[in-house]
């Protein structure tokens, strides 16, 4: 038990549970199940991009993907546009959308590598272009997703969304990759000490490349599912995921100094973030209070977790 409590990610679940309990105490148990179901549905999307952001952040200080929101939007728009409410085009739409997302990832890594610029600036400037493409493609359109996609995105089994179950499988896969694949080991090694990783004959370049592509790919998946879930793509659909993706990664116990990833923490943190908002809504708090508290929680968590102290100077 003590050992379990020492894991940072356990705390994100404890926090999520505490917030949920406070909320249902306030409502005298009303809607306890509905709140959880809603939390699972909405948190799922954050978890998908959170996994990608986690891989990027694990690659070490300075690595962060700021192009996730733009990629979500672009892939959502591309999917809707190609599918054009047509069931027959469903698969084509998914492939087109994911191909676009992968291209963004390749482009991001290309900028980092060829222009020798920090990932923040590379992903930031590419996000400008990506967002513009989305605005251009999605201009004046609000295409509904094909019924099968929206059915799939909203379907539930015993109160648990199907998408959530799939994302659980995806999370297990990512967790397994990090723990037991050469890619994962290399990523963790780069995050701790890129020079030592290179001297240990690990494929550092290829691993960083795959990491940025994976992050964009997951943003693409999120874009498609979110479009199905909310009845179409919107140009601001990615916006909230910049903070959400980074916040879930950090609250979930992944080290901002790199080299340590936590998949379960992303689940706990995403649920916590959503339930926190639900709690504040239940209390009747306005948007302002919600925003301030969200921001303060992030600053508090990062201050407790600390920055580079694990790295010896």
């Amino acid at each position, binding site marked *: 038990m003590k050992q379990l409590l020492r894991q940072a990610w356990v705390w994100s679940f404890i926090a999520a549970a505490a917030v949920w309990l406070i909320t249902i105490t306030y409502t005298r148990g009303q809607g306890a199940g509905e709140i959880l179901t809603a939390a699972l549905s909405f948190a799922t999307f954050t978890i998908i991009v959170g996994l990608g952001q986690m891989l990027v952040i694990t690659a070490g200080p300075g690595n962060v993907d700021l192009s996730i929101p733009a990629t979500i939007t672009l892939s959502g728009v591309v999917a809707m546009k190609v599918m054009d409410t047509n069931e027959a085009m469903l698969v084509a739409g998914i492939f087109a959308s994911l191909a676009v997302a992968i291209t963004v990832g390749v482009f991001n890594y290309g900028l980092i590598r060829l222009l020798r610029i920090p990932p923040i600036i590379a992903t930031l400037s590419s996000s400008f272009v990506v967002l513009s493409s989305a605005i251009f493609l999605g201009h004046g359109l609000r295409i509904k997703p094909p019924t099968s996609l929206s059915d799939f995105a909203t379907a539930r089994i015993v109160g648990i969304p199907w998408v959530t179950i799939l994302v659980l499988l995806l999370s297990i896969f990512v967790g397994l990759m990090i723990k*037991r694949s*050469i890619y994962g080991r290399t990523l963790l*090694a780069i995050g*701790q*000490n890129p020079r030592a*990783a290179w*001297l240990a*004959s690990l494929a550092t370049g290829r691993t960083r490349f795959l990491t940025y592509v994976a992050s964009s790919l997951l943003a693409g998946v999120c874009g498609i599912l979110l479009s199905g879930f909310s009845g179409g793509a919107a140009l601001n659909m990615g916006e909230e995921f910049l903070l959400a993706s980074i916040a879930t990664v950090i609250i979930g116990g992944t080290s901002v100094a790199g*080299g340590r990833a936590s998949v379960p923490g992303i689940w706990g943190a995403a649920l916590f973030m959503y339930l926190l908002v639900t709690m504040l809504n239940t209390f009747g708090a306005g948007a302002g209070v919600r925003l301030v508290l969200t921001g303060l929680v992030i600053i508090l968590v990062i201050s407790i977790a600390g920055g580079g102290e694990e*790295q010896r100077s």
Partner: protein
Amino acid sequence: MTIKAITLDGVEKNFGAVKALAGVTLRVDAGECLGLVGHNGAGKSTLMHMLNGTLSPDKGVLSIDDTTVGSGWSAAAAQAAGVRCVFQELSLCPNLTVAENARIVHRPLKGFGWKARATALIVTKLNEIFPGHGIQPGDEIAELSIGKRQMVEIARAFTVTDTALRLVILDEPTSSLDAVTAKQLLDYVKRETSAGTSVVLISHLLGDILGTANRIVVMKDGKTVTERPAANFDRSSLVTAMGSAHAAKSTFKREHDFSTQQVLVEAHSGTMQFEIRKGEIVGLTGLAGQGQTQMLLRIFEKRDAKVQGRTAFVAGDRQSDGVFHLWSIGQNITVRSLKALRKMGLIAAEDEESMASDWQQSIKIKTPSMNNNILTLSGGNQQKALFARALASDAEIILMDDPMRGVDIGTKLEVYDIIKSEAAKGRCFVWYSTEIDELQHCHRAYIFRSGAAIRSLAKDALTEEQVLQASFAESAA
């Protein structure tokens, strides 16, 4: 009567298990140039950081003008007392100009017209020390050559605004200077000391020390071993004083002939042909930082070198090049062999564990569990884990970057045996080491100086005297 500028009495400093200074007593008189010599790791830098206030002694007393300074000794206090340091790694701000860097160390350079005063200050000093230096006060440091940077750094240390100069410590000040500027500096040091300032001169160029210092102190293993007026030393007596008393002998009883073995590494270094054959243990030696690590990296990257076979690197600077600090001992060992541990695309946990425990046995890593974090090990055992990482791998060529730094003698002896038996099995070892004793475990060695190999010494010629003679050459005449 001489006035004591600064004295150290019984100063000790430990870094973990490593004793960097083991009770040093040292006196620097006003107006003298004290030469400080000793091998790599003799404790010279630690001593210097102590004087400069960036490190504080674990034990012992530091006093200025016979006044003991206690716990208040800090970088700022040293500045105020007129102690300046020119470090081996330059401490200028690369993004600032020459004049702006002068401002950084002089608080009075502020307010209206500070830039003109800073410019005048540094230009005057540069002209005084290095006439014809060709450095503009508005030049950005990053754009200057390494030699010119060093000139700026030295000149800056001798500039004076509000506090009088008491002591300037120069650590290898001529390492990036050409012969002319080096002579200019040494002449200036003589003028400055006769004007009353004290200078501590650390250099591996014995000619510089003999020609400039009034008194010479020899350090060894964190202690001062000899102290004499410079006039009482000559080159060979100085080399003898630095060396160890016993003459180490090669540990190989039989002659080995590798000429029929396959050549695994082939490269040029300077004018030398560099060649390593299967089964060989080849040392790269000379003074520290003369291009040995660069040679290892060249082989590692297979850049400008013909390399037949896979390589593995054993880091000497464990923290920056070797250890993955979040991982267990086992993971730190298996990281170089992950491909071999794969089953159906995934790393097999049981194979990983058995590899870790096999190597715990064969290299004798002292730990209750290989699943413990790597940092729970002592430095020597961490180093063993790094050896295990390389030896467990499929590499035929093992590159070792001065791997025995800060490792205790017991561990060393164990590792030497393992290296020898692995070499007998056909691996080759390229071993950068500055310790003469260690070279006794090599079949032969290359001596490096100024970035290239300058001599190749066969096993029998690997004596302390030979290596020192080749390493400590005069500054270019």
